[in-house]
């Protein structure tokens, strides 16, 4: 056999051994965290473009965050600018805030280099409770307004939407909230030490300079899907009967399965078990 063919075969074997050794290392000894999540946090990915072709199953990690709207009110929003991402926090994360703030012709919008960080996702914690409190408060205020002006159709519609929003938040919206980010994985693991409440996932943070104001948002999680191996994919198929999960508008449904998710040393997750709800 020619020398190049032998080197090719060795390369193939070596690379596969290294990849699988990395997987074994990630899953060895103590797990970093182990969370019992439901379909609210891990819903089946529906890739409609290849629905007939792909027999594999993966779950999308659904997360949210608390951010402020234009009136500076705290709201629940996935792609907003998280409230905890202050200027000081961005400095801590290595963003060169001072150089971004230098006045120039591009004060309306300035593109700033995004940074790689480790995000902390809190499950069913203070952030979720705050989101519930906000929704309850909004509903109470709207109820008062509607009672004062009973014929106002706009207020009736708004009240209905807020009721639906609260119910959705209680029943089918995710309880995973991004609450912090850092550069040092170990420091974050030590700071958020409750192994049943936190997930740590690497991702990208994008700072912006818009209308002479520095802001930032979560651009992406590097692991945004979790693969479902057999036999767990069968359990999920049975539990859902092929019906997609919905948490939009008024057509939200209760979760139908629970997933015990582990996070390993390399912050790579895997499914420990799946059960019907």
């Amino acid at each position, binding site marked *: 056999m020619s020398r190049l063919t032998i080197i090719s075969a060795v*390369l193939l074997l070596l690379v*596969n051994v290294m990849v699988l050794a990395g997987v074994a290392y990630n899953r060895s000894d103590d797990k970093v965290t182990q969370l019992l999540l439901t379909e609210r946090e891990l819903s089946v990915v529906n890739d409609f473009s290849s629905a007939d072709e792909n*027999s594999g*199953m993966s779950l999308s990690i659904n997360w949210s965050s608390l951010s402020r709207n234009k009136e500076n009110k705290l709201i629940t929003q996935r792609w907003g600018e998280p409230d905890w991402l202050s200027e000081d926090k961005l400095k801590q994360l290595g963003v060169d805030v001072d150089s971004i703030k230098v006045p120039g012709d591009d004060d309306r919008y300035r593109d700033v280099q995004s940074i*790689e960080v480790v995000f902390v996702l809190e499950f069913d914690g203070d952030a979720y409770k705050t989101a519930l409190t906000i929704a309850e408060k909004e509903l109470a205020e709207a109820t008062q307004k509607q009672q004062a002006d009973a014929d106002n159709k706009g207020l009736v519609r708004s009240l209905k939407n807020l009721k639906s929003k609260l119910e959705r938040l209680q029943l089918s919206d995710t309880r995973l909230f991004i609450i912090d980010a850092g550069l040092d994985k170990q420091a974050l693991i030590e700071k958020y030490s409750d192994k049943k409440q936190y997930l740590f996932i690497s991702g990208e943070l994008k700072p912006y300079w818009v209308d002479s104001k520095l802001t930032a948002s979560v651009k992406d999680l590097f692991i945004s899907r979790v693969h479902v191996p*057999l036999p767990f994919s069968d359990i999920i198929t049975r539990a859902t009967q092929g019906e997609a999960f919905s948490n939009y508008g008024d057509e939200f449904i209760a979760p139908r399965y629970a997933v015990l998710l582990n996070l390993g040393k390399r912050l790579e997750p895997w499914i420990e078990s799946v059960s019907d709800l």
Partner: protein
Amino acid sequence: MDNKLIAQQRADQIRAFNNEVKMLEDEKVLTLEPPQREAVAQYHQSLLKTLSNQFDIDTSDREKQLSSGMKIASFLGALAMAASVFFLFYQFWGYLTTPAQVSVLVLAPLLTLGLTYFIAQYETTGYFAKLLAMVSFVCFILNLSMLGQIFNITPSDKALLVWAAYGFLLAYAFDVRLLLAMGIMCLAAFIAARVGSWSGMYWLYMGERPENFLLPALVIFSLPTWINQKPYSGFAPVYRVAGCLLFLIPVLVLSSWGGASYLDFPDAVIEGFYQLTGFVVSGALVATGIKKHWSDVVNTGNVFFVLFLYTKLFDWWWEIMPRYLFFLVIALCSLLLLFVYKRIRHHSQLTGEHHV
């Protein structure tokens, strides 16, 4: 004889020589004596036989036409087979347990590599071996990307490096230019990703900064000058063209999108700088190509010089000129280029450089 391309050139030369001698004899300009004719014919016959055995070259026009057909069929077959392997796995992987999935993924590139080697030993044309080598490469891409998906591994740019290495190894082992091009693309993407991550960028977004590709372009273009490619047919032009494309496409993008640059200057200044760079580099490539007899570089330089010129003309005059005048200017520019090339051609004929 170093490679198939040079062997084929020699065979074409012999065929042209025979045709020319026949014409000269018909027109009574030259008459070879029978012993001379026989000696030349015998020598050519034996040489063609050796070349044919060694490199599987085409010794007649008919063979040449059939070879072209086989090359096209092999190329399309390789692409279709690779796509088929990909979708086959995609369709059935959900029904396999994790150990079975891993076994299939690890074994597929290994088995196809073995099969490629086996077929290469028994099939002289090499078309089937090249097709299988391509399938093996795709299996390896599938291997790593699907293992990443199965075990939820954080995506890494190192995959590009090992794909590049495998592409290069297969290309050199089985003389496959398409795999060389694939290897070059993976290597360029890896270097661009690394250059991007030095500036704090996440590697998957390397394309957002076209300047990341300038360094890989220089490395790839210059590779045939410090690693001898003569034993491999047509490999040096693949490196050179890939190098040119990896340099000139980002320059073309930056010449109209200064915001994507690392340079800390106003967009208009950056765009002007890259427009000038585009003209200078593509012009220099044409000149170098003519001097070194690299027709591939001359053609690439020409195409980009014209592209830069027309882009600039569009920027300047599309809005302010009536359409008929704009296209007339384009036509006049083309005529001007024709005159320039005619002069260069005439000059090279005078100096005896007519092999480019």
